[in-house]
């Protein structure tokens, strides 16, 4: 983290849905290789902020830049092209499709068939590559043709993360990655996130679970009523400290 130019930089970001203002004037810098946790109570504006960064929704105010250059994310596709991938809690995967189909969804590999302009899916290669991504994440899954609905919650997260790796995303945004997971599964997902960090990827983590935040994040950003009001290194903050900060912010917002 010696580079002083932020990888991703938000300035004055606002998001309004008609008269309802979900995010107000948020400035946020994310540096390469960091794990940044975004916390806040329900309705604090976390999800709306994330949708703006991931290209799912366009901001109504402010600007985004990457490595100092202004960018506009008109769609999730734009964000992916810029190396920002988002893993949503429930929406990321097609349950009835295979692991390989999910990993390569939207970016399928093809090979020429007989004629140079006739390209067909390269299923073998997609299966082999999916296997490679998943073993990189040490996920114990072997059959890449298995439907995702037959996997455990933690394995599903591994599949979703594999898709982000497939896009070679530098910034991986994870929305509540451990919600609805058991203890063992949660440990698996935390390990996945550590592997991403060790791999030099930048992770933005949205979580309600303060223990996860303390265990993983380098920095915590706390939002309330659409504003960012805490942005500091985790240092020796405990899970309780963060919960207090969130409540203090709620009191201020109210």
């Amino acid at each position, binding site marked *: 983290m010696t580079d002083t130019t932020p990888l991703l930089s938000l300035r004055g970001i606002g998001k309004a849905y008609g008269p309802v203002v979900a995010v107000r004037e948020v400035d946020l810098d994310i540096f390469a290789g960091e794990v940044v946790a975004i916390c806040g109570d329900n309705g604090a504006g976390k999800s709306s902020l994330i949708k703006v960064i991931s290209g799912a929704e366009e901001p109504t105010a402010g600007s985004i830049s990457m490595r100092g250059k202004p960018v506009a994310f008109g769609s*999730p596709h734009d964000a992916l092209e810029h190396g920002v991938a988002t893993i949503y809690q429930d929406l990321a995967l097609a349950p*009835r*499709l295979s692991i390989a189909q999910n990993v390569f*969804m*939207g970016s399928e590999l093809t090979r020429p068939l007989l004629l140079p302009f006739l390209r*067909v899916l390269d299923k073998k290669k997609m299966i082999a590559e999916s296997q490679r991504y998943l073993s990189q994440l040490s996920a114990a899954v072997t059959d890449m043709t298995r439907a995702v609905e037959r996997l455990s919650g933690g394995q599903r997260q591994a599949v979703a993360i594999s898709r982000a790796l497939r896009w070679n995303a530098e910034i991986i945004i994870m929305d509540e990655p451990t919600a609805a997971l058991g203890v063992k599964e949660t440990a698996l997902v935390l390990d996945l996130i550590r592997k991403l960090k060790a791999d030099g990827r930048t992770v933005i983590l949205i979580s309600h679970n303060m223990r996860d935040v303390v265990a993983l994040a380098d920095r915590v950003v706390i939002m309330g009523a659409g504003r960012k009001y805490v942005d500091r290194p985790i240092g020796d903050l405990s899970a309780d400290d963060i919960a207090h900060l969130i409540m203090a912010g709620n009191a201020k917002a109210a």
Partner: protein
Amino acid sequence: MSRIAAREVIGRYGTAIAGLALILFFLIFAPNFASATNIINVLKDTSFLAILALGFALAFTVAELDLSVAEIASLAAVVCGWLVHSQYPPALAVAGALGVGVVFGSLNGFGVTVLRIPSLIMTLGTAAIAKGCAFMITQGVAFVGRWPVGFTGLARGYSFGIPNLVLWMITATLFAWGLVKWTRTGAHMVATGEADEAARLAGIATARIKRIGLLLAGIFAGLMAALLAANLSSAAPNMAGDYLLYAIAAVLLGMTMFEPGKPNVPGTVFAALVLKVLGNGLVLLGAAYYIQDIVLGVIIIGSVAFSASAMKTAAFKV
């Protein structure tokens, strides 16, 4: 074989095996069923249904219901018939039929993705429009005549000893199968139909993909219409209307085979064959014509119930 594996086999192939058994039953017990003429007739009948149903299945693959395929086919047949009747070259007549499919398929896609009308409603509307247009063009009477062999041969002729109709069906089947299973567009269609929000977030242009699915349903209806007109040397404004329920039944029964719960190409085509064999066999066994409708209704309901129980959840939402 373990119990789970046995269940898997029954889930995948159970109804296909039942279909085969049914065909065998009629081969043995229905008088004249096994004659060459009858079998060729059944295969020809199957071709019309399979081509129309494949279009419906492609729209269903992107999770859109196209209830207009049969009326699009009626209108396309009438336009095609009018062109032949007016002595335009056969190629132009076929292009006319396909053109009707393109126009109505695009219209459905526009309504569903741009105007955001549920496909169930949009295609009911376009079905009514197509039906009205077909009657308007013909003024209620059919185009009948001594049409050139260059046109009627498309359906009635033989190539390599195989009826052309059957070859058209095989071509349409290979096209649909290749598209869905082996192309990026097909993979995007499947992803969009399975989970359109996930597909959109993965960077797939889901609206465009839905428009492609509905466009293909229209084009397949146009092809079926040209063949229907060629086979009958006539074009009437209501000639394909009855195919709608059969096409839906073929797709839904097809969804109980090979890839349970998913609209799929081999299932659709085999189900079309089973339905036509059943209809033909029942007639040969002396069943009254209305029995077919009752059986068709039972198959539609039964197929969806089967898919739902195989997947332990509703087979699909519309």
